[in-house]
């Protein structure tokens, strides 16, 4: 079987397109590269959607944590503490069990039954957990940035007669983003790394459609040779990390374009790792 044939068969195996049966013996390098690569679809899917959704929730949470009103501040603080203070692994398990406890048949709402079955599937349930988790981490970053918005900028905004929503949209928010961006890039990188946990926690892989690490482990278990599949997965993740850094670097440059060179925020890598 030629390599092109393998790619055609297994290139989208992780989303259920192509050959159903996974190879069982005599694994070629081509098969390993293709299947592990097809698993990356899931990692990118979880990472991108959680980041997009989490960005907005994180902004809201950071603002809530920054207000004077206790009634708004306390829930935000607790949310951030719970999701940052406990392992993501446990959060996955807990969420899966909680979602699985919902009645199988679905809720009757105004005569219509709302299905709950799909919530226990990884694509919805795990995405939801990752979304909440990244929101908490990013909210802490945004909150820190919000606290360090220069006083002079805010006073200048007042002097121009900006207030309320206008002040926030034109001055506070862009400055907050600019200050937070290098740390937020780290958060994004590690969110992508965290997506590998999905299929190792409560969420089962449906019809053996898993992420990159799921297939890497499949090969390592079958061949007893960890020296090929794991480096392949590592290779894909290094590519993913580099592209995240590139994309976020572009946005960083745009956020900083009004500043003289030496005052621009530098992109810096800081390990933050597992959650």
């Amino acid at each position: 079987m030629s390599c092109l044939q393998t790619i055609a068969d297994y290139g989208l195996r992780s989303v259920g397109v192509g050959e159903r049966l996974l190879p069982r013996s005599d694994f070629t390098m081509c098969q390993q590269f293709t299947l592990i690569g097809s698993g990356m679809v899931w990692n990118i899917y979880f990472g991108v959607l959680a980041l997009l959704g989490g960005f907005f929730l994180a902004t809201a949470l950071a603002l809530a944590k920054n207000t004077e009103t206790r009634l708004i501040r306390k829930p935000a603080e607790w949310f951030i503490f719970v999701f940052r203070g406990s392992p993501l692994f446990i959060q996955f398990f807990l969420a899966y069990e909680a979602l699985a406890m919902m009645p199988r048949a679905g809720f009757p709402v105004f005569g219509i039954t709302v299905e709950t079955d799909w919530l226990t599937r990884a694509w919805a349930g795990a995405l939801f957990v990752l979304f909440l988790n990244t929101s908490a981490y990013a909210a802490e970053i945004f909150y820190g940035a919000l606290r360090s918005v220069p006083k002079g900028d805010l006073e200048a905004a007042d002097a121009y007669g900006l207030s309320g929503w206008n002040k926030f949209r034109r001055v506070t928010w862009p400055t907050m983003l600019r200050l937070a961006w290098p740390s937020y890039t780290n958060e994004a990188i590690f969110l992508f790394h965290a997506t590998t946990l999905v299929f190792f926690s409560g969420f089962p892989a449906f019809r053996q459609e898993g992420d990159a690490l799921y297939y890497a482990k499949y090969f390592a278990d079958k061949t007893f040779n960890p020296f090929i599949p794991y480096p392949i997965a590592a290779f894909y993740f290094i590519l993913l990390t580099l592209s995240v850094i590139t994309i976020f670097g572009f946005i960083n440059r745009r956020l900083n374009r009004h500043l003289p060179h030496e005052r621009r925020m530098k992109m810096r890598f800081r390990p933050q790792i597992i959650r």
Partner: protein
Amino acid sequence: MLCYLTTGKQMLFYGSFGIVLVLLVVTAPVALLFGFSGALAARSRITPLRWVGRGYTAMVRGVPDIIFFLFVPIAMDEGIEYMRNRIKCPDWNQPVFAGNEFHVCAAAKMPLNSAPQIYHEIYGFSLAVIAFAVVFGAFAANVLYGAMQAVPRAQLETAEAYGMTQAQVTRRVLIPQMWTYALPGLSNLWMILIKATPLLFLLGIEDIVYWARELGATKSTVYAYPHPDWRVYYFLVLLVFYLVMTKLSEIVLNRINRKLSFGQATAGGEALRKADI
């Protein structure tokens, strides 16, 4: 209820919290040692040694750590068995990697098949500790390397002007001073280490996650205490356990940080000085 919470299986569940704590206590110093050697190697004057140090610290940057957690124990295990195979059975002529199997002679199995269960568990646990130490050593090396760079240049130059050798400068000036710079990073790392402990489950150790799944699962009437699916509550307990651990470490680390920044030429030290006046 009280009877249920004191059955033998439940006791094993409580014991597994101890396993987590032991892992934390054992791994932290070992990882620090790894990180320390890594950071020193990255600063070394000998080029190959520097490459090794740099490579080690760069290792964790682009790759999810969980890959290392899956990779290191298997690689270690197979490495050890391969070496033992070479030593103990010199006339073993079958290929070690034969298709879908890993073949070594019976005498080279680690631990021996005949060994009691407890040795298998200890061996598995040590592999897990090594995996944790390797990964967290790399993170610690990153932090310590940064801290060594942050020690003011003038301090080192003064020491050199007094005629100290390179080794003396490192031992007497660099290392005592770097801790205050390293502490924020190291405390961050400690938090991460706490949150990484449930990954023990992936390595096949009977830790809290294992017992929570085992005990929480639906028990039919065959068991002494039948109950429906209680896993949610068990995991809730774990969640609270981790939150408490995080909160406690936060408090302790803040104290240490205060102590270490005292009298240092950093923003933290300056804030303390002002507060005293």
